[in-house]
């Protein structure tokens, strides 16, 4: 294998594929990144067996070949190089990859590519097409609500329901639910749903950020893997087995109080309140009176602070307490100028909507005062 490419492209490509390299592994080959010539391009691939990312970089290929090299060292060196032409030459007999870039010379002891786990190749005809921007927005607004508690594997995933001409993403960690419907370009012939690890979707979110071209989504039969195909990248993830809770049952049908308020204003008020709330389990109170909403936090140890905001209030006044991190997460993820807060009582779930965007809904459980 002999090829050359630009340091910039290789560095960027590795920053995408390298995210699938496990930080700790008992299989040495997984600590390596695959480099292979592929139709006049350089293919980079990494996997942790659950998540695989393949990325193609433009290159001038002189002779074909493939090798895996230790990912951490290769990536660190690449990021340290000047923006110049990088030449890679593989000595097949010693499995040593030599690199030159300007005055820099380096070599890496590799492991044969045949030992690298096979990464499934997408079938270009199967699947559904979604606009990258719509997908990225959906991921931004849903993925954060997934659980990080490994004792409930299903909840560490995001439910993706395919039906009609849309894909609905939903995540719930037990305390909040985020749900968004994303339009698909094609019609789904038979409805189905899968649970995708949130960690894989967090990577997809990074890759699709700023992407213009559409993304092709397909699943392997019988739905044990999902593939996201982009122009230069393919992300492939194992699916999570199990039954996802019935999330629609959680969404309250009615509300007694509805508050419409500037998103940025309430976000800033929550961030201020969080300063005092951090000593007291992140508790903030929202007090709703006619025409206003007050966000307040009170720590007996460090002090207290509150912000009073003008709001459009329908229905009765109410005081309710929330974990401020949950509020900051959802308000930051939204992009509409105004949000709506729909409440029933201090112990019932609150609903947060993006005003003017019906395809999003968020449900958050309050904190309950005492039990006496």
């Amino acid at each position: 294998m002999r090829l050359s490419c630009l340091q910039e492209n290789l560095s960027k490509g590795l920053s995408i594929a390298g995210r699938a390299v496990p930080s700790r592994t008992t299989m040495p080959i997984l600590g390596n990144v695959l480099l292979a010539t592929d139709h006049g391009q350089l293919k980079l691939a990494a996997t942790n067996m659950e998540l695989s990312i393949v990325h193609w970089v433009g290159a001038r290929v002189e002779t074909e070949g493939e090798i895996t090299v230790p990912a951490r060292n290769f990536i660190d060196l690449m990021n340290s190089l000047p923006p110049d032409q990088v030449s890679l030459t593989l000595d097949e007999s010693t499995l040593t990859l030599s690199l030159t870039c300007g005055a820099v010379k380096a070599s890496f002891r590799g492991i044969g590519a045949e030992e690298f786990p096979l990464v499934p190749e997408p079938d270009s005809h199967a699947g559904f097409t979604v606009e990258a921007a719509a997908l990225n927005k959906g991921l931004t607004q849903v993925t954060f609500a997934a659980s990080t508690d490994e004792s409930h594997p299903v909840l560490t995933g995001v439910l993706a329901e395919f039906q009609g001409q849309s894909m609905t993403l939903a995540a719930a960690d037990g305390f909040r639910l985020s749900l968004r419907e994303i339009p698909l370009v094609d019609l789904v012939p038979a409805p189905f749903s899968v649970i995708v690890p949130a960690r894989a979707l967090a990577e997809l979110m990074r890759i699709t950020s700023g992407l213009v071209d559409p993304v092709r989504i397909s699943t392997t039969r019988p739905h044990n893997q999902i593939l996201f195909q982009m122009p230069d990248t393919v992300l492939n993830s194992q699916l999570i087995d199990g039954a996802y809770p019935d999330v629609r049952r959680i969404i309250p049908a009615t509300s007694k109080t509805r508050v419409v308020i500037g998103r940025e204003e309430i976000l800033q008020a929550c961030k201020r309140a969080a300063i005092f709330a951090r000593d007291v389990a992140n508790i903030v109170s929202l007090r709703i009176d006619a025409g206003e909403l007050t966000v307040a936090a009170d720590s007996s140890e460090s002090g207290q602070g509150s912000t009073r905001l003008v709001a459009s209030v329908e229905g009765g006044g109410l005081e309710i307490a929330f974990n401020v991190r949950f509020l900051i997460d959802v308000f930051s993820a939204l992009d509409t100028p105004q949000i709506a807060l729909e409440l029933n009582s201090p112990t019932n779930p609150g609903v947060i909507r993006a005003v003017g965007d019906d395809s999003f809904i968020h449900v958050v459980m309050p904190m309950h005062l005492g039990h006496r």
Partner: protein
Amino acid sequence: MVRKIIHLDLDAFFCAVEALRDPSLQGKPFAVGGRPEHRGVIASCSYPARVFGVHSAMPTARALQLCPELIVVPGNHHEYSTYSHRVIAHLHNLTDLIEQISIDEAFIDVSDLRAPAESIAAELQATIMREVRLPSSLGVASNKLVAKIANNVGKKSSRGGIPPMAIKVVQPGGEAAFLAPLPVDELWGVGPKTAAELQALGITTIGDLARLPEADLAARFGKHGHDLVRRARGIDDRPVTSDHEVKSISNETTFAQDIADEAELKRTLCRLAESVGRRLRRAALAGATVRIKLRWSDFTTLTRQVTLPALTDRDDDIYRAAQQLLDDHRPAGKPVRLIGVGVSSLAPPREQLHLWDTTNQKRQRLQLALDEVRDRFGRQAIQRAIEVSRDPSDQEL
């Protein structure tokens, strides 16, 4: 406006309660305290015992040397807190401006009442004696500082061997004159160290201190100097604050012998966690930080803490965190002299509700049920399996 402040202190409170529970103790030298063979100390001693020189915080072994016929009874804190609540309830019949500073001590602001403070004090003393059958002493003055010192002075001037039942009144305007002849260490904020420093300056009475130019004292003691002079002149603006804010709740115990046995340590930790949890729930508080305190055989002491993901007032949460801290910070087999559990970052208990899981609510109900059983039948009526040790003498705490 001149305020009317009363300082109330129950006379030898624990002993007074014990004498009500067991009238045969009446008039005898006895004390509430730990057993001498368990390095116990005297928590409270009766007035007949005080004649022998026995005082609280003295090791029980020493007290028995001074007074061999001293009867030592174990403490009964549940009972004391019940009596304390009854006394406080009587105070609330008078006013809500009550600042309880300990189980047997409180300030009462009666400025808004028409009657003269001394007659209110006399009536209060009589009511508590009649209704709760407990002797008390009261100090009356225009502020907290002088009221408390007045009470101390009143108690000391009574004859020995019986409860003082004192009432000492300092008239408004007479504060400085009243304080002047008293030794300087009667003053709040003057500990042995400051007292020694003042002594070196030739200052032995509060009057000496009051006469010093404020600037001199400030130069020597900083801000503390200013405060000292003001107090020496009987000036104290602190209000009687009814919502005395608690910053942490903790409980600790010193072992009779140093303990290296892990099971025994964990049993103790569990009991301490339960007692802290119970106090939290009584105070309607929950905490986010759990800490343990460990003292090794060589008296070196360490405290380690952990912040929980959520506020809690439940015994099992406190115990689990404390046990983890013990596992993390005690080298295996290292003997422990003292162990303690505390909870801080307090706030009213608020619980993150769950979208569909109600396990937490179930654990909450379990805790409430446990509390109820223990309220009715005593702490040992129901216990965790880990607490049930083979040695019945271990069951006391």
